Structures are given as structure tokens and as C-alpha cells.
């Protein structure tokens, strides 16, 4: 197990190199995220001024900037197009000829892709956003424990979102139509994770339902840990909740991928 970590390390390096080779895309992406971030902040602040916002003005800015900075870790539509084309063209036959577990390998590949993209993007956004004037400024975490809880939740959140989105890749193996799989998955996830409307803005009944699902644990949870909206003392329980979902989704995905890959290799030259 330890020895095979080298392969996964190699994957991470690969994704990082690939991210670096698209400088223009990274720049353009970062610019878009700033633009989008300002719009979101203005919208939520208008909400807040109209009364009844559960988040304070400065909390709103921090929430939005962190969401933008770590976008690659939290959105469904961040997908590995090369892996998907490998699935559609049948090049995935090669994946089954490697002395590694296909699920683990894809998992590492997707996690590495997200992590590499986030690392490339978060520094400029965090840096610039923390220099902006109030009320647009990104503030530090509400306390040291809150900051640590944020990082821990974000890390497990990454594993969780990979475990969730893996099902869209598995569905692509079966249907050979990645667009369909992701168009199906993305709206459900984004709504339930509070990316369309932040969960604190939602009516109480709906919020309770969504809090039972794994989706909000990827995005909403780490961000609210950061702002202190969820006290750091609750972190262990919530981290456990994330870990349980991962422990449930990973074996299920592994089983499903194994079946899907084998049946997909039967036909064609």
C-alpha cells in the first residue's frame, strides 16, 4: 500500500504540470472568478441590507472569496476531460492493464487534478481579496481553531466530492455520454450544497433536509467553519460525518466502477 503511494504521487505531479502548462487558462479563470465574486457579494449584500440575512456583511465577502479561491475543490463541473475522453474512446482498456486498482487510481487522479488547480488559483485570489477595502475584504478565520477546522473540513470535503463525482464518471462509463451524466449531477449537487443560494439563506425545513445529505459537507461546511458560523467545537462531529459518507461512498463506487469497466470492455475492436 505504502509503495503504491509513489504512483499516486506521480499522478499528482502530472496534474500539477498539466495545470501549469495552461497559463492563459489559469489567468482567465482567475479573472472570471474575481468578476463573479464581486457580483455575488453585491447580490448577497443587497439581501442583507433588505434585512434578514443570517450572515454579516464582512462574513458574506469572506464566504464568497473563499468559495472562489477553492472553487476547484468544491464544484461538480470541474471535470477531468481527458479521463472522460479516455472513457468514451475506450482507451480506458489501458487503465485495466496497470498494476493498480482502477478506482484508487482514478480517485487519486481526480483529487490531484482538483488540488493542483486549487493550489494554482487560491494564492492570487486570497492575496488580492485580503487587500480589498471593506466590505469586500476577505478576513482571516474567526479564530485559530476555526482556521484549523476549516482546513480539516476542506481536506475531507475534497475526498468527499471526489467520491460523489466519481459516480458521474461511472455513469459515463455505462452511458458513454459524460455530458448527460454531469448535467444530471451538477444541478442537484450545486443546489443541495448551497452554491446557488447559500444554505443559511434557505427556509428552515429545507435546510434541515439538505444538512442530512453529504453535499453541503463539501462546500458549505468548511466555509462556515472559517467564519465561525459553525463553532469549532462542533468540528469533530462534523468531520466524523464527512468520514462516514466517504466510508460509504468509496466502496460503493469501487464496486460500481469495477462492474461498469468490465462490461464496457466486452465490445469493439
Amino acid at each position, binding site marked *: 500500500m505504502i*509503495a*503504491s503511494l*509513489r*504512483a499516486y*504521487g*506521480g*499522478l499528482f*505531479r*502530472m496534474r500539477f*504540470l*498539466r495545470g501549469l*502548462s495552461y497559463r492563459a487558462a489559469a489567468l482567465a479563470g482567475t479573472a472570471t472568478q474575481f468578476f463573479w465574486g464581486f457580483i455575488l457579494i453585491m447580490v448577497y449584500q443587497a439581501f442583507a441590507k433588505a434585512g434578514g440575512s443570517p450572515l454579516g456583511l464582512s462574513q458574506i465577502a469572506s464566504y464568497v472569496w473563499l468559495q472562489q479561491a477553492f472553487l476547484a475543490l468544491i464544484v461538480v463541473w470541474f471535470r477531468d476531460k*481527458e479521463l472522460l*475522453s479516455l472513457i468514451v*474512446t*475506450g*482507451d480506458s*482498456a*489501458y487503465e*485495466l*492493464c*496497470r*498494476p*493498480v*486498482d482502477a478506482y484508487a*487510481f482514478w480517485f487519486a487522479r481526480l483529487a490531484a487534478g482538483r488540488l493542483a488547480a486549487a493550489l494554482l488559483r487560491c494564492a492570487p485570489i486570497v492575496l488580492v481579496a485580503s487587500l480589498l477595502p471593506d466590505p469586500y475584504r476577505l478576513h482571516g478565520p474567526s479564530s485559530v481553531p476555526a482556521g484549523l477546522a476549516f482546513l480539516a473540513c476542506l481536506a475531507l470535503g475534497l475526498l468527499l466530492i471526489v467520491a460523489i463525482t466519481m459516480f458521474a464518471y461511472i455513469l459515463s462509463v455505462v452511458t458513454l455520454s459524460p455530458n448527460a451524466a454531469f448535467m444530471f449531477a451538477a444541478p442537484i449537487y450545486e443546489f443541495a450544497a448551497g452554491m446557488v443560494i447559500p444554505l443559511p439563506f434557505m427556509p428552515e425545513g429545507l435546510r434541515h433536509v439538505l444538512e442530512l445529505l453529504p453535499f453541503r459537507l463539501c462546500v458549505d461546511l468548511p466555509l462556515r467553519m472559517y467564519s465561525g458560523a459553525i463553532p469549532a467545537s462542533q468540528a469533530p462531529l462534523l468531520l466524523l460525518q464527512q468520514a462516514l459518507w466517504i466510508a460509504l461512498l468509496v466502496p460503493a463506487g469501487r464496486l460500481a466502477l469495477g462492474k461498469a469497466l*468490465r462490461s464496457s*470492455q*466486452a*465490445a*469493439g*475492436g
Partner: protein
Amino acid sequence: MIQVESLRKTYLSRRRASGVGQALLSLVKPSRERIEALKDVSFSIERGEIVGYIGPNGAGKSTTIKVMCGILVPDSGVCLIKGRVPWKERAAHVAGIGVVFGQRSQLWWDVPVIDSFELLRDVYRVPGREYSASLEELVSALDLSPLLGQPARSLSLGQRMRCEMAASLLHSPDILFLDEPTIGLDAVSKLAVRAFIERANRERGVTVILTTHDMHDIEALVSRVILIGKGEILYDGGFEALVAGGRATGAGIEAVMAALYGEMGIA
């Protein structure tokens, strides 16, 4: 080294007749057909052989290769490669084999070829020194040095195929499965690939199983062919003995093979 006995593999395929009515019907009641990809396949291959595995399109060549690579699980039958059942001890098995699917790519599309190689080194856990030696040998044998820094997407098919061959041998496997490695290549690249296969067999002692539709590949490389048609082995022996009758008529090798497939009822 490789022992295959009474291998059977069937799978279900959907089918429907043409027309809107049939299309609607198949929504409600899809009709499926059982296709027998392999009916009864047996052969054995010794260490150091180069064997040509030939037959018309859809004969079951790729299915057999996929079973031997541990990708597909057969319905019944025995397959032992170096004493292992490929699909049962998959990881241990694939660590010792190399595979090239001529119509597929294992190189990462948008990073330099050398990065793909280094990832394979990590995946197969090739020790650093062994990797350098192996890489150096492959680069000189396949003339890869101008290609290593280029992303795979910018390579021509011939250049890419040379890189694919190298990628499959980096971990020094002793068995190499080549599924149509010369498909679509120009004359120069074909010759380069053939020379390389021959050299890998001679110098590294690699056992090679080669499927191809290009009988010139077979003439150049192979002394023994196994011919499969409709999922059954129809011939196993010398290539010249197989085509001697046809050649006597003075026909070209393609015409000889076409006539042969026709006589066997597998065309």
C-alpha cells in the same frame, strides 16, 4: 509460458431492425442477442516465441488478448500465464506484461511524452537506475530523443506509435501483447516498429503475441501463426505452410488470405 484451454466468452449485444416502429418497440422491449466471441480457444506459447494471431475482423482476436491481459473474464476455460490466472491475480499479472492497443493511446494528451513515461515508471514502481537504462535503450532503438519533450497531441501517428511501444516496455515485461500495432502507419514507421519488435524479442527475449491484418508484418516477424475465425482456432502452425497453396497460384498475399478466409467460411 502461456497456456490457454477451451476458452469461452459470450456477451449480449442489443440489436433492432431499421425504422421508427422498430425503434419504438425496442424502447419497450429491447431485443438482445448472445454473441459468441470465443467458442473454444486453446493454444500454448513458449517463452521467447513471436506468434502472429490472425483472423478476419470480429473473429475474437481482441477478446482473446483482453482475456490474456486480465481485462475480461471468460465464461469458462483455462488461461494460465506464467502460472497465474490473469483476472484472478490481476495486479501481479499485469506488472509482468506489456500491452499496445494500436487503436488506443496510453500517453497523456497534453503533457510531454517524457512525463507520461515517468508516470508509468511510478505506476510500475520501476527502480530509478533500471528506468534510466531501459529508457536510454528504448530511446535509441526507436529514435525518440526529438519526441520526448513534445506533448502527445502534437505527434504524428507513426511517432506516437513508437512512443506507445516504448511506454509498454519501460517496466521490462517478458510478455508483450500487440493488438494491431501497425494499423494506419506509413511504410517507414511500419518498418521501424517491425524492426523494434524483432529486436526486443531477440535482445530482451520478450515473448510477443501480435495481432495484425497486415500480412507483411507476419511475413517479416513471425514463424508461427494462430488463425482464429468465428471464435474458433482454425489453424496453428507455420505461416508459409498456411499460404503455400495460395502463393502457388501467383496471387498477392492479400488475395491469398481473402481466398483462405473464404474457403474456411469465416470471410
